[in-house]
C-alpha cells in the first residue's frame, strides 16, 4: 500500500544508493546522513522498496537450511583430536592413544603375518582406541585377533594366554577400548575360517544369525541408539565372564562399545558395560 508516487517531494533529495541504504539499515550512518535518508524514505516508495529488499535478503539468509558436518569430515576431525590425546591423563604427552594403537595395530599385523595372514591385516583406526580390522574372508583366522589383544601400555594385562579358557580374549573395563573388532562378519558374511586346532570364534554364540538379530533387538531396547545394526561384534571374556562386545555407530560422530553377557538372546540381554569411543 504505497501511496506516495515518486515525484517532486521525493526528488528534493537524491535517491541514496543501495550501499547507503544498507548502511542506514545496519545503523552505521552518522546522525546527519541517517536523518537525510530517513527524510528521503518518508517520501520515496522506491527507496522503501529497496529497503524491503534488504530485509528480504536478511530473512533468506536466516532461513537457509543448516549445513551439518558430513560424517567423513567428522571422522577425520575426531581422529585428529584423538591423535592429540595423551595415553593416560598426566602421562607422557609425547605419546598418544593413536600412536599406541598404531603400534599395537602394527604388532597385530606382524603377528598376523606370522599366522599366515600377510594380506589381511589392514588396520583401520576407529576413533581413539578401537581397532577395526579389515577382514579378508578367505584367509583371516581368528587367532590373529585373539593374539593382537596384548595391552599396548602395560596397564592391567589381560591374561588370555594363561587362563583355562585361553580361546577367549580377555578384557576388563580398563582395556575394553582396545578390543579389536572385525568388520565384515556382520553383514551376512560367513564366519571366517577358524584354525583347525579349535580356538575361538569371532561371533561365538552370535554365529547363529537368528540369535544375533534377536540379541541386537534386545540391545536396541536397552540402549537406545537403534541407528542401524552393529558395525561388528567380538566374542570375548569380560571381567572374567563370557561376553559379546558389539560396536555401534551411535551418531554421525560417535561409536559405542556395548558389552552383553554371552547368553544374550531373544528376551534377555544382560548389559555388562558400555563405553563411548570417538
Amino acid at each position, binding site marked *: *500500500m*504505497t*501511496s506516495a508516487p*515518486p515525484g517532486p517531494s521525493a526528488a528534493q533529495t537524491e535517491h541514496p544508493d*543501495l*550501499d547507503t*541504504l*544498507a*548502511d542506514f*539499515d*545496519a*545503523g*552505521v550512518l552518522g546522525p546527519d546522513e541517517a536523518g537525510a535518508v530517513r527524510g528521503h524514505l518518508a517520501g520515496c*516508495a*522506491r527507496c522503501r*522498496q*529497496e529497503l*524491503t*529488499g*534488504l530485509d*528480504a*535478503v*536478511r530473512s*533468506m*539468509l*536466516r*532461513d*537457509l*537450511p*543448516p*549445513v*551439518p*558436518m*558430513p560424517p567423513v*569430515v*567428522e571422522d*577425520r*576431525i*575426531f581422529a*585428529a*583430536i584423538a591423535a*592429540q*590425546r*595423551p595415553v593416560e*591423563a*598426566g602421562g607422557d604427552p609425547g605419546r598418544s592413544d593413536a600412536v599406541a594403537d598404531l603400534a599395537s595395530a602394527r604388532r597385530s599385523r606382524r603377528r598376523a603375518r606370522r599366522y599366515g595372514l600377510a594380506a589381511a591385516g589392514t588396520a583401520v583406526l576407529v576413533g*581413539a582406541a578401537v581397532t577395526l580390522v579389515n577382514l579378508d574372508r578367505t584367509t583371516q583366522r581368528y587367532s590373529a585377533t585373539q593374539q593382537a589383544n596384548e595391552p599396548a601400555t602395560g596397564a592391567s594385562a589381560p591374561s588370555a594366554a594363561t587362563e583355562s579358557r585361553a580361546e577367549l580374549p580377555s578384557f576388563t573395563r580398563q582395556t575394553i577400548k582396545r578390543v579389536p573388532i572385525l568388520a565384515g562378519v556382520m553383514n551376512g558374511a560367513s564366519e571366517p575360517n577358524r584354525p583347525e586346532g579349535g580356538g575361538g570364534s569371532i561371533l561365538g554364540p552370535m554365529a547363529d544369525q537368528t540369535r544375533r538379530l534377536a540379541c541386537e533387538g534386545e540391545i536396541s531396547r536397552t540402549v537406545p541408539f537403534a541407528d542401524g545394526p552393529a558395525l561388528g561384534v567380538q566374542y570375548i571374556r569380560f571381567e572374567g565372564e563370557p561376553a559379546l562386545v558389539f560396536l555401534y555407530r551411535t*551418531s554421525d*560422530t*560417535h561409536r559405542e562399545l556395548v558389552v552383553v553377557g554371552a547368553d544374550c538372546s531373544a528376551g534377555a540381554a544382560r548389559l555388562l558395560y558400555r563405553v*563411548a569411543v*570417538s
Partner: protein
Amino acid sequence: MTGTPRTGAERSDIDLLRAHVAGDPWAFDALVRRHKDRLWAVALRTVRDPEEAADAVQDALISAYRAAGSFRAESAVTTWLHRIVVNACLDRVRRHASHPTVALPETGPGEPAERRDRLAEQDVAIVVAEAMAQLPVEQRAALTLVDIQGFSVAETASMLGVAAGTVKSRCARGRARLAVLLGPLRNLDAPAPVGTASPAAREEAP
C-alpha cells in the same frame, strides 16, 4: 566470573573446557560434538571448498585443543571456538586467493527456468550460496556469522577481531550486493508489490 553449577547431566561449555584442561580425555570431544555443525557451517560458507573447510576446521580445533589452557572466560566458549575457526578460514582464503572456489556440495545441476513459480528450499540455498561466493570473504564471513548463524554484532566483532561498526558495515555491503544478485529470485517467490514499478519501467512511463 559467574560460577557455573555442575548440576545435571549436561555439562556447560566452560565446564567441558576446564575438564579438558584438567586432563579429562573426552571433554574436548564432547565440546566439539556440541558445536561441530555450527563451526562447519561457518567454515564451509566462508571457505566454500569443502576440503579446505575441513582442513581449516581441523587445524583450528587442534589449536583450540592445545590452547585451551589460555582460554579466558571474558568471552563465551562458543565465541572463542568460532573465532579460531573463522580466522583459520580467513587465513586459508587469503592464502589461496587465486584458487577457484568450488560450489557447496549440495549443488546440483540447476535449471531455474523449469521451476519459475516456486523454488524449493534447496534451490534457494544453492542460489544464495552462489551469490555469496561473489562477495569479498570478509563480507561473507560477517554475513555468515550475523545473518545466517544469528550471532550478535558484538559477538561477531569479537570473533573477527574488528570493531562492531566494521561488522555492521561489512554486513550492510554484503546485503546490498546480495539484494542485487538475489533480486530476481525474490521476484519469483513473491509477486511484485502493487504500486511500485521497477526503475526501468518508471523511466519508460510517459
